[in-house]
């Protein structure tokens, strides 16, 4: 039996899957299921019949996209046959600006100048005396700065009655405090540097430390003012403290007493419109109207 005629008739019902007439090839980003047609619009056809032209254009491009999808590698499982989409190629612009580089600490600056690089150190260190691995720092650290030695030799020329354990503990604490102080200084400088001119920072100017104090003061003052207004009465009934801060720059502004009267009148009218309603009271007194109709019956 020859079924070619039937097949041909069936085929005639549908449009061809091949699309021709694209001067510039259509670009695809199959990861996003997108096709970009850069061909110019046919002005004449568009003017002649806009809807039909746009529909046919859409249909052709969709067909091209589907052709492309059908060429992809497929997998089939219980849900049916599925195409494996590639990774999207279209780059989207970044939403937020690039983060600014963090201001360098004094050590980082020094290390850069001297060419000192970072070395990775292991967390655990082998202790020769104990014969086992111990953490480099922290709890049960290997380096206890000699505060855990069971015996300490009295250094020559020092007071034999002095507690050497205490001396070592004090020395350690001093070092920690010093480091803490430097850390805080770095933070302060970083805070100023982020507000400093970028050019000055690049030149290597030190942040003005007086400025740090001034900034801190300003910040503190603003926080105090906020906290003052955070009582139940918004600070109105607080007891006045001598030498207290007064909020600056908050001034009530009133219209001048003598000014353009037409403007004032117009302002009053607009407020009145809002208060009473644009058309004033209802033109029909509903209550009265109901009563009138009732009595007529």
């Amino acid at each position: 039996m020859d079924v070619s005629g039937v097949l041909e008739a069936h085929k005639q019902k549908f449009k061809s899957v091949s699309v021709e007439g694209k001067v510039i090839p259509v670009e695809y980003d199959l990861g996003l299921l997108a096709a970009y047609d850069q061909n110019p619009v046919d002005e004449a056809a568009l003017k002649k019949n806009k809807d039909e032209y746009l529909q046919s254009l859409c249909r052709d491009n969709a067909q091209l996209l589907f052709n492309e999808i059908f060429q992809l590698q497929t997998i089939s499982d219980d849900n049916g046959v599925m195409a494996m989409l590639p990774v999207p190629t279209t780059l989207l612009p970044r939403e937020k600006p690039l983060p600014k580089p963090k201001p360098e600490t004094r050590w980082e600056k020094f290390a850069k100048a001297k060419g000192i690089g970072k070395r990775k150190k292991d967390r655990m260190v082998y202790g020769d005396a104990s014969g086992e691995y111990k953490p480099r720092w922290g709890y049960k650290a290997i380096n206890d700065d000699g505060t855990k030695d069971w015996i300490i030799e009295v250094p020559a020329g020092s007071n034999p009655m002095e507690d050497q354990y205490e001396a070592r503990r004090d020395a350690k604490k001093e070092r920690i405090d010093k480091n803490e102080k430097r850390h805080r200084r770095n933070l302060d400088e970083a805070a100023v540097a982020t507000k400093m001119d970028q050019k000055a920072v690049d030149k290597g100017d030190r942040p003005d430390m007086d400025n740090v104090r001034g900034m801190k003061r300003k910040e503190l003052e603003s926080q105090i003012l906020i906290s003052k207004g955070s009582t139940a009465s918004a600070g109105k009934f607080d007891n006045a403290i001598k030498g207290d801060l007064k909020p600056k720059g908050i001034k009530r502004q009133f219209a001048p007493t003598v000014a353009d009267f037409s403007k004032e009148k117009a302002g009053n009218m607009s407020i009145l419109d809002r208060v009473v309603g644009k058309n004033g009271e209802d033109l029909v007194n509903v209550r009265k109207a109901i009563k009138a109709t009732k009595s007529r019956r």
Partner: protein
Amino acid sequence: MRPLTEVETKTFFEKLAKYIGRNITHLIDRGDETYCFRLHRDRVYYVSESVMRKATSIGRDQLISLGICFGKFTKTGKFRMHVTCLDYIAQYAKHKVWIKPNGEMPFLYGNHVVKAHIGRVTEDTPEHQGVIIYSMTDIPLGFGVTARSTSDTRKMEPTAIVVFHQADIGEYLRQEDTLF
């Protein structure tokens, strides 16, 4: 002395509109002379432009009063009307209550108006409506707020309060030092 802010104007007009409704327009936009509302020591004064201009040359501490005092802003920011504005709101009143001669004195001593004292009422006055109170000879005596609508009043007892007292001309004597 200064013009009212927008919020103040709104509160003020809301109170005034309870009595004269949209007729506030006639106060703002008068044919004869430019009038304006000015705030001075929490009081709102209705004053003509010429008087207001003259008053600008008087210091704030020295200026006691100017124009017609319409009322004052309370410390909680509400507006309270004074009887001094009666002449103006009586002209444009929307709802009126006339009281009998035997009810005049009790009202002028600051009491509420009872049903027995009422001579006449504007038809269809709703509940809680600002009303102007007149004597039977059409002299404005003060203003108040209705306790019931006109139709509900009919069923009430003669001793029931119909209009709540707000201000009366007896205040010119009772409160003469704080009124203006």
